[in-house]
């Protein structure tokens, strides 16, 4: 009366598992691609803000030099948990200034060299540190 036992090979189960594995690996690859894109976007946005801070710092140094303030050390708070530090000191016949911008865990630094050009100071060299 009982039905004869049929040996099941499990073909459908194995195929289904393989297909699920393929879909999972495809989703993982796409996830990695999107995550990398998101990281790039965040990084590009943060670097753009840091560059803006560096320009603001350089403009501040220029203004101070034009007011004959050749030695200073000032720190400014910036939005988004950042700060900007500008320092300057006489260096030979010119002024060497360091501008340091911090934005969360990221930072950018540049060294500026100004020389006098008539009544004003002129930026003659910039060294950007990564």
């Amino acid at each position: 009366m009982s039905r004869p036992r049929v040996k099941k090979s499990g073909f459908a189960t194995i195929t289904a598992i393989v297909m699920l594995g393929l879909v999972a690996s495809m989703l993982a690859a796409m996830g990695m691609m999107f995550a990398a894109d998101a990281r790039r976007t965040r990084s590009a946005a943060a670097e753009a803000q840091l560059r803006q801070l560096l320009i603001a710092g350089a403009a501040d140094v220029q203004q101070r030099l034009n007011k004959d303030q050749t030695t200073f050390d000032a720190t400014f708070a910036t939005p988004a948990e950042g700060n900007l530090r500008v320092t300057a000191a006489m260096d030979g016949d010119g002024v060497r200034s360091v501008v340091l911008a911090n934005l969360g865990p990221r930072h950018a630094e540049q060294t500026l060299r100004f020389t006098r050009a008539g009544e004003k100071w002129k930026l003659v060299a910039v060294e950007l540190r990564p």
Partner: protein
Amino acid sequence: MRRSFRSRRRGLARAFTLTELLFALGILAIFGLATTQLFYATFRVGHATAQQQNAASAFDSAVSALRADAWIAPEITTPDPATAKLGELIWTINETTLTRDAGDGARPRTWTAPKGMTFAADGASLVLRIPAAPGERGGDLRLISEPMTLAKLVAS
């Protein structure tokens, strides 16, 4: 005699009809086709992802170097859309190759870049124009020169 007829009937009852077989074969064919497509798509996505990440990192590296050069450039000129002079440095675009020549006799550095890029000078900045391509939006990248920006600020 009777027993053998019974056993044959039982055997026939356990068999499949032609329609059932054809139906099963059809399902198997559809399943096989879907599996093949899935295999193909998986490998294509994996390959495309790796290729895109390589292209993105190469382009990012080139733009970082170009941005750093433009940032310290005392002057920016573009004699033609494929050449940018950033002070002493010369950047050129040749098809899909971006080349940086420091002008100091050192071997020029090269990067692979999207096709059809051009340079343009715009005030205190260098503009890198990237044309739209299938799957790519394209657009302009503006790379600022700090000495020129400050000079403009002082002059204004």
